[in-house]
């Protein structure tokens, strides 16, 4: 029996002040709360729990088999936002983990060692299976080896090959499809105790496509001036449902329909997005951002942009759990192939030249005044090579690039003064260059 308080009384993230809220946000909060509620009662309800990662997650498959996902990355970022990560990381480092490695992993391990209380304060159920979808990040592989040591539960591996040249070869697709068919699906069927119903899977894939259509419209709304969204700071909320447990659900379809309508309404009102301090005012800089955000000082980080009138019109972090604005949609007519293509297409699974191409496209299509890299210490998948990307993009577009450094959830690597200093230099540089152009 659970002694936990009803989850819905506790907002998962108390980030935004009580300014005018979008109703889609309340909907998302409710979805998340419900999900954690289900997780809290999973064991007593006999539901099986699968831990898996955001990039290359197979949510439709899990839904079709009535399995409940837990995403350790989300727990880690939520711990960062709730100022718990420093303690968790210290816990993991005390247990012998190196200061040099990914802080998501250490935060997760530290949380586990501290009782595994999730974002809503309730204890997370232990995994019945670790679904290691190894997509775009080497650390995932080690992460679940580490969790396997702790939980002593089975792991099923899905090796998603890397796209060094931005092309999915038939061999890559076949490799993933064969693994899905021969190893992943049988393992999940065994866990759930039932056979995969292909029709049910197709229904979920269709629902995914609907949400994806609307999400792309949301992203593209930033082409409007002023942009009705912030595609990075606001964007991390927009990707919430579709990157996690909800893609392929009716809830997600409704969330994205509502979100899209809100964006369209703001366009009609010539209104910008909500920020931590209310509605955004004049938009002086349209930016494209590469790299994940910092979570431990997220509102402060956002304010550094918002108060200068900087709005992010497109970002790559919001493509790590699925890249849709280059055309991919889940396609129920070939369920396994479409899941393979989804995994293969996640942003960090793309070679650096392809990433540069995508950024260049964003800079041009969204008419950006600048692009900025937030280089996080934790994530070599993102970070290694970003300085070359910066140079290449400056050369190709002539748009000024900026470079700041922080970390995902380790507050030791977030220096407010340092970042603010660089950002202001960067914004003033854009100003100075504008004056020159107009002179």
């Amino acid at each position: 029996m659970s002694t936990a308080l009803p989850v819905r009384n506790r907002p998962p993230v108390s980030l935004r002040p009580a300014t005018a809220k979008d109703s889609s946000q309340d909907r998302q909060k409710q979805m998340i709360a419900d999900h954690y509620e289900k997780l809290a009662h999973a064991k007593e309800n006999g539901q099986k729990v699968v831990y898996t990662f955001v990039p290359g997650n197979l949510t439709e498959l899990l839904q079709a088999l009535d399995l409940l996902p837990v995403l350790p990355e989300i727990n880690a970022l939520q711990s960062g936002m709730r100022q718990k990560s420093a303690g968790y990381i210290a816990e993991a480092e005390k247990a012998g983990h190196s200061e040099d490695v990914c802080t998501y992993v250490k935060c997760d391990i530290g949380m586990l060692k501290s009782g595994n209380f999730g974002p809503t304060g309730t204890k997370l159920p232990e995994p019945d299976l670790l679904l290691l979808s190894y997509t775009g990040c080497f650390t995932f592989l080690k992460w679940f080896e580490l969790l396997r040591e702790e939980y002593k539960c089975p792991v099923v591996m899905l090796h998603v090959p890397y796209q060094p040249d931005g092309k999915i070869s038939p061999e890559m697709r076949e490799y993933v499809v064969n693994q899905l068919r021969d190893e992943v699906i049988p393992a999940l069927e065994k866990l759930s105790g039932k056979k995969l119903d292909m029709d049910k899977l197709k229904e979920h894939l269709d629902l995914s496509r609907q949400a994806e259509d609307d999400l792309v419209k949301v992203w593209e709304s930033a082409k409007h001036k002023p942009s009705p969204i912030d595609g990075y700071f606001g964007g991390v909320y927009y990707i919430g449902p579709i990157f996690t447990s909800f893609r392929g659900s009716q809830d997600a379809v409704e969330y994205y329909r509502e979100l899209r309508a809100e964006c369209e309404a703001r366009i009609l009102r010539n209104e910008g997005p909500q920020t931590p301090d209310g509605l955004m005012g004049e938009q002086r800089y349209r930016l494209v951002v590469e790299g994940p955000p910092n979570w431990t000082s997220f509102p402060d980080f956002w304010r550094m942009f918002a108060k200068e009138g900087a709005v992010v019109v497109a970002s790559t972090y919001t493509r790590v759990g699925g890249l849709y604005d280059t055309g991919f949609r889940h396609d129920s007519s070939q369920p396994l192939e479409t899941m393979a293509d989804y995994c293969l297409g996640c942003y960090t699974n793309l070679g650096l030249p392809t990433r540069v191409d995508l950024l260049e496209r964003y800079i041009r299509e969204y008419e950006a005044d600048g692009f900025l890299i937030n280089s996080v210490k934790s994530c070599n998948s993102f970070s290694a090579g970003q300085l070359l990307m910066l140079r290449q993009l400056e050369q190709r577009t002539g748009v000024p690039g900026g470079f700041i450094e922080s970390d995902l959830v380790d507050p030791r690597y977030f220096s407010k003064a340092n970042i603010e200093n660089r950002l202001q230099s960067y914004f003033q540089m854009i100003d100075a260059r504008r004056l020159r152009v107009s002179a």
Partner: protein
Amino acid sequence: MTETTNQTGALPLPDRASQILAQARTMMDDLHLGPVQRWKAANPDGLAIGYMPVYVPRPLFEAIGCLPVTIFGGGDQVDIIRGDSYFQSYICHIPRSAIELGLNGHLNCLDGMVFPSLCDVIRNLGGMWKMLFPDRWSSYLDLPQNFALHLGGKFYGQELKRIARELHERGAKAYDPEALRQAMRNENRRRLAINVLDDLRRSEPWRLPASDLYVLLRAGGLMPALDHAELLEEFADAVRSRPARPFDNVRVVLVGAFCEQPPLDLIRTLEKSGCDIVDDDLQLGLRYIESAMDAEAADPLEALANAFIQFGAATASRYIGTAEKGAALLEKVKATKADGVVFAAASFCDPALLDQPMLEAALDRASVPFTSFKFSENTGQFQVIREQAGAFSDSVKLWGTVQ
């Protein structure tokens, strides 16, 4: 640093073994890849293909007339300027020196580069290479992490075919099964020669210190397998007649330096601190396949792929599958009668450092003592490591454990 070529008791005679060592050392220190240039002069139709650690299927390259060349970065003798300009402070050192060497023209004799899937940094370095050197062939090599022959094995076989095809399009010979069989025989012979030397350093570490073996193997990254095998065989014969006297050291397995290599002086520092390194994962690529490949198979390409799947070494960059974490290391400790383990990982090396806590836990459970430190290829200070390794070897000697 003061240079002494002989650290461990063997007398500095100009014997054949010492000559071979000196020759290997010269090759290793030649940042302009002189041995590769000479090979190319002798093989005008051949292509020299560089590759980053750890493992690539070397016999495949040799079979199509290519010389696979290991690129271990720049060691501690390269000024890093442009290399540093592309990497943040929290990224390991080897990609910096690799880029520096590339931009400085040190790698101009290479006709291509291969970046095997090892970690995100080396993977991304492959993408950087394409942008920095758009006119030169380079390729990412996706090594499978699924170890079912019909899944990962099949995919890997397709990768091998792709590499052979792409190189053939750029002037390499067409794939020929018999040529591959011969290349695999040569590689098997080299592997045997390494085994012989490994046995020797375990039975008489004072006669063949790990630092010397390291230098000998470094030459292997710059020459065809057969030439290297012959060199090692000759050395093995010669070194047995070299006078040497036993030392009372502790026996350690060194783990974690499979990609970025520590400076030679660091390996010697460990030896001088009282550690006989009886096994290590330095230059792991040469030992990665832990059993002979089936060089007589009807489909040698499939055999080459299967060798990776079935006999690949348990290292940090390889998913452990259903095996028990640390079991392979414990097995190694037992087989080499090691007293303890030294973890030596490159700073910011994701695979090694993420792996280490699990290996440490396994050692703890088996009461095997261990110590750990980090290095980078251009580390210039060894004082701390000397003290740490000295204290470790002393305490293992005195108490059989770390107090």
